[in-house]
């Protein structure tokens, strides 16, 4: 057996060269490809993790934004409801006030109308009463009513104080007003009896006023003695009005 040292050396050199060649053309490119893929995979994972983190952050932000929107919506809804309620209350108060005012006005108007109608009715009633009284009076004997009313006039004069009777007697020219003209005898009788009740009476004048309906009245420049159905009706009417006014004030 003989060792060929040249072959041994050449084979050693060949293997060393082959190590370099395969390192250059096989192991380094393949390891580089594996490392590049690993790097790309790591980068993809990192990117995915980053994207996941960003997505989670975006989700949290969106959730916070949604919650904020919801809270803002609730606040706005609450404020709107409060505003609507306030506006509703204000409108109701205004409507109630306006309604009250209109009701008061309507009531006052109704009361005024009622009052006017009552007044008119009273006046009509007075007129009607006067007409009815006049109509009824025409059915009575003229002398009886005249004597009775003149007696009432005399009685009223006699109830006056002395000073007033004296002043009435001196209040010339004094007029005796009657609803119908008296004949001469009746006038003389009236003057005689008045002179007895009013000493110092000057000769009075006789005046006719149908509105009196019945009775006698004395009209002087300064004094007035009423004793007629018209006066009584006027007194009744005035009393009714006074009662109405008293009722409204109460």
């Amino acid at each position, binding site marked *: 057996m003989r060792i060929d040292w040249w072959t041994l050396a050449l084979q050693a050199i060949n293997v060393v*060269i082959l190590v370099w060649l395969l*390192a250059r053309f096989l192991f380094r490119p*393949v*390891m580089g490809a594996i490392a590049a893929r690993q790097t790309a995979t790591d980068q993809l994972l990192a990117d995915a993790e980053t994207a996941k983190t960003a997505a989670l952050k975006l989700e949290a932000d969106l959730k916070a934004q949604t919650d904020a929107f919801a809270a803002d919506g609730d606040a706005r809804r609450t404020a709107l409801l409060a505003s609507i309620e306030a506006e509703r209350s204000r409108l109701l108060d205004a409507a109630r006030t306006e309604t009250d005012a209109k009701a008061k006005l309507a009531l006052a108007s109704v009361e005024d109308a009622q009052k006017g109608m009552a007044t008119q009715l009273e006046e009509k009633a007075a007129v009607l009463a006067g007409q009815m009284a006049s109509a009824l009076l025409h059915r009575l004997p003229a002398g009886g009513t005249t004597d009775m009313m003149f007696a009432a006039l005399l009685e009223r004069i006699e109830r006056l104080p002395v000073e007033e009777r004296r002043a009435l007697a001196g209040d010339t020219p004094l007029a005796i007003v009657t609803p119908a003209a008296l004949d001469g005898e009746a006038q003389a009788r009236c003057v005689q009896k008045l002179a007895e009740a009013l000493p110092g009476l000057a000769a009075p004048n006789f005046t006719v006023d149908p509105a009196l309906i019945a009775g006698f009245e004395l009209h002087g420049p300064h004094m007035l003695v009423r004793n007629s159905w018209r006066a009584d009706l006027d007194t009744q009417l005035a009393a009714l009005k006074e009662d109405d006014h008293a009722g409204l004030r109460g």
Partner: protein
Amino acid sequence: MKIASPLESHILFTIGPVPISQPVVTTWGIMAVLTIGCWFLTRRLGLRPTRTQAALELVVDVTARQIRETMEAEPQPYLPLIGTLFIFLLVANWSSLLPGVEPPTAALETDAALALIVFGATLWFGVRALGARGYLRSFAQPSILLAPLNLVELFTRSFSLMVRLFGNVMSGVFMIGVVLSLAGLLVPIPLMALEMLTGAVQAYIFGALAMVFIGSAISETNPSPKAPNHEVSS
């Protein structure tokens, strides 16, 4: 028919004073095929691997994982040497399947060259990892009394590496040659299949032992790194 001695080198031609033997020429051919093939296969590597790229990455990744598990170190510095040894031995052992081609590993000089490279690599990586003093001190582990034995082992294991490979490959080639000369064309085929298996196993054993030797050299506290799962002695 005369069978040539497997211990003799056949000089094909000379370049000046340098005789070029048949194993050297065969090795050049293998180097050319491997280099051109690797260049062709790795010229278009991408992030989306083709089937070819996936196969290449599988081979390289398995080799790197074997280095990591056996040497308990990062495989990058050792991958070109270990991987080249395995691929070259595999291709060289299987080259006997080609008619008229004798595997270079059937020549003692080739196996001696490979063992010498592993020996040099063991020294180089051991000194680089531990420093010259640290590497020398590792021979005195676990006791100074074992230093002579460790020194002797450094040489004998490289020698055994050479002899193991040479014996297995040479015997297979020789046996096939003998059977072929006696029984004709088809009879050696089962033996050739067995030789393929033997060649692959021997390539793996050689690479695994190289990893073990280098791993023990770079590990001061662990002079015997974990051996591969397979039994590597033959």
